[in-house]
Structures are given as structure tokens and as C-alpha cells.
């Protein structure tokens, strides 16, 4: 019932040929097998690419911060030090896996996996493009919210299981911060769901356009506020500065992952970077037009009929254009996140909670009502449309 990456591929000629060949060769209907294989391959690709993205995130962070602080940053491994993250990864794997003596062994083992699993499960619905998405789940946004909350449990359990005061405080801070900021974030997202007309990312992205005036962020005044609230909430949910209290190095050594070493620590770090990427992607999908390309360049019909490309390459090219649009916007947001991290000072815990419960939550609530009002009163039209219409009416048009 949901469109998946298999749906996309099964529409293509080679896939059908392969299916028939396999069926004939194996002696039973190979559709299911091929589906599983396709999913597996797709997941494999995405997970590895995202792991790469997470690694590149550390590199980007270091490089950008160095740039801001007039330093060089990593510059020895590979050109411009770009392979630094691989070296770091190798180092992580080679390190001794230390488990504290009085720690809760089982949970100490589970916690990084939970973090990692929660983050990577969200990738299932992240809309890279209209075709190259694992699944356009009909409750995509909701699913994403649910799965990403597993990360909170992971952080909490990690903090608890280390049997260390720093970790404990960091874990508790992280969990409370995550479940608190989930409220304004969810309320902001619901406003966008109202505009998009569905929980499916495809619906929401499809309701937008490639050009900025078609994006939801500029749809009406409330959505701008909604975006700001969402972005602040996302920063807090991912424990990024200025909300990086769970791992505040000046107070808590390194927060909830103080006692973790080696790959366990790498899991936490990776989960964090990937989560930032995911939330930036969600922000792009919800507010910044998602994978939409300007002037509908990615349209298969346009590429195939007008430009004259053959059907297969036309589809692939369209999808690649969409992925490019999506990733570029996401990276731009990613840059903003890093920029904020190295610019703003850290908040205190009480300021953090005050900001959430006394400012963001009421603003998000009122904002939700405002968006609903806009949808009801202006029939969901964006303000640019209204301005154009009134201008046209003033000019004597219909």
C-alpha cells in the first residue's frame, strides 16, 4: 500500500526481466525474494552512505570550526585532510573496549545499539527523492517521531549503565531534554502536516515546489515561526550546542558517553551526527521544499519527451537531480547547525527548560492554531498566491 524503493524499481524494464529470469531459473515466483534482496541492498547502501555522511560530519565540523577560529583544522590525511575521519574510525576500532567494573554490563552493551538503531530506523522514511526512498510510509512523520525517541532511551541507559556521576547526570539531562523538546517539535510538525494534508512525507513534499516561494517555510507568517521553533527544538533534541548540556565538557567531562570507548563511543558519535543530518533532512522536507527541483527539471516526462532522453536514464537522472536538491539543502542546514555550535554559548539547565516550556511550547501551540486558521480561512493558499491574486484583481484581472 505504500510506495517503496521496490515500487520504483519494479516499474523499470530491467527489474522485470531479472524477475522473470530468476523465476524461471529458481522454479518459484521470485518476486518476494527479489523484493527482499532489493530492500537489503537499498538499506545497505543507505546505511553505509549515512555512516559516511556521519564521518564526513565530524570532518566538516572540525574543518568549519577551524575556519571560524582562524585555524587550519585537519589537513594531513588525504587532500585537505578529508580522510581524517577514516583514520579516526580505524583508531576507534583498534582501541581497547573498556567496560567499567561496576557497570551494568547488559545495558552498557545495549545502550549504544539503541541509540544507533533509533537513528538509523528513521532513515527508512527520510525522503531523499521521490523514488530513492526506502518507503513513503503513510504515517511517515509519526513513525519518525516514534523511532527517534528510542535515541532518548539509549542516551539515558548509557548514562545509567556507566555507573559514573558524570554519565548519570548527562544521561538524565539528555533524556529530560529530549522528551521536553519533543513537545514543541511535534507541535511544529503537526502544523506542517496540516498544510501538507497527510503524515506521508511524499504528500508534504509534494505540496511544495522547487522555488523558495513555494516552500512551506514562506507559505504564511506562521510557518516561519514554526520553522524557527522546529529548528531550535531539533538542535536541542540532537544535543547540539547551544543545548549540548548532556555532554557539556566543561561540567560533565563528556556527559553520558564518558565511560564509553572504542566502537561503543563511535556508535554514540555516529548516531549524533547522523541524527543531525536526519533532522536537517526532515526540516528540509517539511519546510524547504524537500527534494523538489526548481522548474520541475526532475520530471520524467519533461526529460523523456522534451529533452529526448530514453525512459530509463530519464527516470534515474530525475531521481538523482532530486537527491542532489535534497542533499544540498540539507548540507546547507547542516552548515548552519555547525555554525551555531561554534558561535553561541551554552545555556544553563533551568534556562533550557524555561525556554522549552515557557516560550517554545506556548508559541508552537498558538502557531498551530494560527496555521489551522490560515488553512481554514484562506483555503490553504500561500500568502504569495494571495498577494498575486489581489494584485491581479487590482489590475483588473479575475
Amino acid at each position, binding site marked *: 500500500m505504500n510506495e517503496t524503493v521496490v515500487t520504483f524499481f519494479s516499474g523499470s524494464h530491467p527489474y522485470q526481466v531479472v524477475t522473470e529470469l530468476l523465476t524461471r531459473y529458481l522454479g518459484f515466483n521470485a518476486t518476494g525474494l527479489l523484493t527482499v534482496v532489493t530492500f537489503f541492498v537499498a538499506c545497505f547502501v543507505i546505511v553505509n552512505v549515512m555512516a559516511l555522511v556521519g564521518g564526513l560530519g565530524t570532518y566538516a565540523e572540525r574543518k568549519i570550526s577551524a575556519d571560524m577560529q582562524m585555524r587550519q583544522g585537519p589537513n594531513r590525511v588525504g587532500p585537505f585532510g578529508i580522510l581524517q575521519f577514516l583514520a579516526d574510525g580505524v583508531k576507534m576500532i583498534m582501541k581497547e573496549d573498556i567496560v567499567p567494573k561496576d557497570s*551494568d554490563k547488559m*545495558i552498557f552493551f545495549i545502550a549504544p545499539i539503541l541509540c544507533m538503531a533509533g537513528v538509523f530506523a528513521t532513515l527508512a522514511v527520510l525522503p531523499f527523492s521521490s523514488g530513492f526512498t526506502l518507503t513513503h510510509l*503513510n*504515517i511517515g512523520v*509519526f513513525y519518525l517521531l*516514534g523511532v527517534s525517541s528510542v535515541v*532518548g532511551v539509549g542516551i539515558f541507559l548509557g548514562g545509567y549503565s556507566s555507573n559514573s556521576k558524570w554519565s*548519570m547526570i548527562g544521561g538524565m539531562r539528555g533524556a529530560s531534554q529530549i522528551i521536553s523538546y519533543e513537545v514543541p517539535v511535534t507541535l511544529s510538525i503537526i502544523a506542517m502536516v496540516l498544510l501538507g494534508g497527510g503524515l506521508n512525507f511524499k504528500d508534504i513534499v509534494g505540496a511544495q515546489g522547487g522555488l523558495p516561494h513555494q516552500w512551506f517555510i514562506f507559505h504564511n507568517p506562521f510557518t516561519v515561526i514554526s520553522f524557527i521553533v522546529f529548528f531550535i527544538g531539533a538542535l536541542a533534541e540532537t544535543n547540539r550546542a547551544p543545548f549540548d548540556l548532556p555532554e557539556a565538557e566543561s561540567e560533565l567531562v563528556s556527559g553520558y558517553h564518558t565511560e564509553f570507548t572504542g566502537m561503543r563511543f563511535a556508535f554514540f558519535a555516529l548516531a549524533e551526527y547522523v541524527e543531525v543530518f536526519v533532522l536537517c533532512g526532515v526540516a528540509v522536507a517539511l519546510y524547504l521544499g524537500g527534494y523538489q527541483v526548481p522548474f520541475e527539471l526532475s520530471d520524467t516526462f519533461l526529460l523523456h519527451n522534451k529533452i529526448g532522453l530514453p525512459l530509463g536514464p530519464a527516470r534515474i537522472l530525475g531521481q538523482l537531480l532530486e537527491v542532489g536538491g535534497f542533499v544540498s539543502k540539507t548540507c546547507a542546514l547542516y552548515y548552519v547547525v555547525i555554525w551555531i555550535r561554534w558561535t553561541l554559548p551554552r545555556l544553563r539547565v533551568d534556562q533550557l527548560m524555561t525556554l522549552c516550556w515557557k516560550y517554545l511550547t506556548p508559541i508552537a501551540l498558538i502557531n498551530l492554531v494560527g496555521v489551522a486558521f490560515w488553512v481554514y480561512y484562506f483555503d490553504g493558499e500561500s500568502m504569495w498566491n494571495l498577494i498575486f491574486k489581489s494584485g491581479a484583481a487590482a489590475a483588473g484581472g479575475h
Partner: protein
Amino acid sequence: MFDNFLFISSAALTVCGALAVVLSPNLMHACTYLLTSLIGVSGLYVTLSADFLAATQLVVYVGGVVILMLFAIMLTGGNDNKSVNKFGIEKIAPMGNIKTFTLAGLSALLMALVISKIIVNVTKAVPKGELPPFSSTVEKIGELLITDHVLAFEISSVLLLGALIGAALIARPRKIES
């Protein structure tokens, strides 16, 4: 086949989690097992074509209830080594002993007897032929919530507000006069 696979894995997760909750001697572990059990239930919902419920289960239980439980365990467990409180009672209550488990087993057995007596009739019933295909339930649940079940919906909102305020009021530390 995929449905069967999903069902079996979810059911295994659920039942094993539940049994682990019963048998685990560590409260924190029990809570973690509960988490797995709840995720398994979410998977069962998916096999029952209840997509919205599955997501709700994840959001509410994993994101809310379990974290609350963990918090409560953490806040009540304490880190100090004193095992006895000022009233002379163990701070961390035991997770049960042979006596209690015997009682629990007997009770469970009793319940099992009765419930199986009910379920037997159900299993004898002729299964329906074709199950309806999976379809999105979000829109239908939304419609039902604001048409047929609007009163329950509103009441539950009041209930949640009451629970929110009540919980905040109860757990708020009071100033001890001294």
C-alpha cells in the same frame, strides 16, 4: 511469508520480553525488557494493519512511559549505599522471592485456567476466509475520533490535562519546615 516472519519475530519479542520482565531480578533490566516487549507489541500492531496504533505505541511508550519509568527507578533507587531507610525498611524493594513467585504462579495458573476456558470457544470458531488487504487507517481513525468518539476524545484530553497537572503537583518537592 514476510507477514509470518514479522508476526513470529514480533510475537517472540513480545512474549520473551514479558517473560523476562517477570523473571528478571534487576528492575532496570526488567524495564529494558519491557521496552522490547512494547516494541514487539508495536510490531504486532503492524501485522494487524494498525499502522497508526503502532506508531502511537512507539511514541507514547518508548518515548514517554519507559523513559518515565527509568527516571522513577533512578530517582527512587538512589546512589548511596545505605540499603535501609530511616524507618528501618529496605530502600530498594526486593524483586520478589520464592514465596511471592509461588503465589504469583498459582494466581497466574488460576487466571490461565479461566481464560483458556474462554479462549477455547474462540479457537473452535470457524475462521473467516479472506482477510481485508492492508490499508491506511489514519484517516478513518481521525474521522472516528471527531465523529463517533468525539466525547471520549474530549474527555481523554481532559484526563491527560488532569494527569499532567496532578503529576506535577504531586511530585513537586515541598519545602520541609525546619
